């Protein structure tokens, strides 16, 4: 049975931590996995995931469906996602506003889309097909981007709102992606969050990024998930949850994965911000 994800902090599940989790039973709200890592027929990944699913709520995060591609969705892949949803009954299921396939080639990156009416129509069709096939609401994650398309006619936030309105999908707000994109595109990240359709947000992501510079000497942040959450992102997260109240929040760390204790400390910091937002909300309610 599906187990609802609590409005607490979860952690991205990494094989390196399977034993720490099963042996230590750490107090975290949930675990989230990349769906594609569990698409083999069997083997240790499924053995560990099944054992951890017995103990914790689970969230399923797809990284390869290529919802933004100008080509039909890969039915076989969509059915694999549907199968994982049935097998593990995750409390949340999400994918990206991105594309990663072209003709027969899988490009293995979350590539950006131009924000046009044509793209909007295509993505809405794809999300309808996903939600119909999997039989549940999916969450769509805002991207981290490094460049813009000259042909875009929508601001990103308006484009995402239009998708949510048209398809009824929920949204996953990755606050690190907001900071990365806002820096790279020279947007105001607070204005982005304030304009974001927060009423559709069901989950938040936090992760680390790497600072670089572009050809003109401007900051260029890369969404690497290979280090601690940046101080600016912690601030944006606090701002976000002060507006939404506590939401399921994931700490992601996918490369240079540290010891469990380091990841757990990040999760505790996020949890303290959620608790503060909850207390603030309670104060507002009693004052109102």
């Amino acid at each position, binding site marked *: 049975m599906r187990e609802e994800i609590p409005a607490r902090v979860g952690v991205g599940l990494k094989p390196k931590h399977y034993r720490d989790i099963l042996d230590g039973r750490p107090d975290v709200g949930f675990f989230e996995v990349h769906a594609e890592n569990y698409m083999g027929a069997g083997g240790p990944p499924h053995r560990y995931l099944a054992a951890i699913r017995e103990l914790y709520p689970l969230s399923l995060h797809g990284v390869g469906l290529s919802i933004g591609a100008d080509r039909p969705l890969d039915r076989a892949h969509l059915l694999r996602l549907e199968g994982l949803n049935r097998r593990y009954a995750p409390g949340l299921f999400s994918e990206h506003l991105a594309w990663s396939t072209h003709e027969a080639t899988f490009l293995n990156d979350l590539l950006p889309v131009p924000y*046009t009416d044509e793209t909007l129509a295509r993505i809405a069709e794809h999300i309808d097909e996903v939600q119909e096939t999997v039989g549940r609401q999916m969450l769509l994650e805002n991207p981290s981007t490094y*460049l813009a398309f000259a042909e875009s006619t929508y601001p990103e936030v308006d484009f995402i709102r239009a998708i949510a309105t048209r398809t009824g999908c929920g949204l996953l707000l990755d606050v690190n992606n907001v900071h990365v994109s806002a820096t790279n595109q020279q947007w105001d990240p607070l204005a982005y969050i304030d304009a974001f359709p927060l009423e559709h947000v069901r989950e938040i992501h936090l992760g680390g990024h790497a600072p670089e510079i572009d050809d003109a000497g401007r900051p260029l942040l890369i969404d690497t998930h290979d280090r601690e959450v940046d101080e600016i992102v912690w601030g944006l997260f606090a701002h976000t949850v002060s507006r939404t109240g506590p939401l399921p929040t994931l700490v992601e760390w996918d490369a240079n994965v540290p010891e469990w204790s380091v990841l757990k400390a990040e999760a505790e910091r996020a949890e303290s911000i959620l608790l503060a937002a909850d207390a603030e909300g309670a104060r507002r309610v009693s004052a109102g």
Partner: protein
Amino acid sequence: MSPLAERQRGFAAALLDADAGTPAGLVGPDGAPSARRFAVYRNNVIVGLSESLMVTFPAVCRIVGEEFFLAMARAYVVADPPRSPMLLEYGAGFADFIARFPPAAELQYLPDVARIENAWKESFHSAEAAPLPLAALAAIPEARMTALRLHLHPSLRLVPSRFPALTIWRMNVDDGVPSPVDLAAGGEDVLIVRPAAQVEVRMVPPGGAAFIGRLGEGAALGAAASAGLGASSTFDLAANIAGLVSAGALSGYDFIDDHPGAA
């Protein structure tokens, strides 16, 4: 072609071709084109896939060194990019690519080491099945033996090699210590199987690869044993069956005469 289709075609083509320029209309915050920004995507794709190959092929990487490995992996990624979002399956053609990669030509055994590593990964992710216990086989009457058809475990993979590929692989994974290997010492046929949680890697006795190969094709025991004997005069049927059972490499059996019309 629609504008979106045209855009993605140009974007995808430029990602895999380092000599291609940045497609028009991909801009920084000032509205001007930025090669550096597009390069982030190119790097994510090429380096990301090369590093995923490094995870699957650690022994190949240790043998040739990281720099050589990444150059070879990059060439492979561009020549044969993934065809499916099932990245767990990516790299199945890497061994054949290495065999045709001129800078690695001197390391003749290297493709077989890569085949062992790809087979290990396939075995790791394969379907589960309970291994056949010895007692189940012991109960089969002698007279039925030639019609017996042994079912290979779904995780079983076989890598025949005319080089000591298993010895070389072992000394280049985990705590292995590389030492001189006599490449002319004879071949090693390698069996990879995961009867439960752990992938196990074993050497197959003489004639065993031909025997197991025929079993995998659905041949009855008699025909498979003939293939084993044909491959090696010292082929020992009892020892081979015992080896497969103890490795957990069998998952069941039936009898060929239970299926009228089967060859």
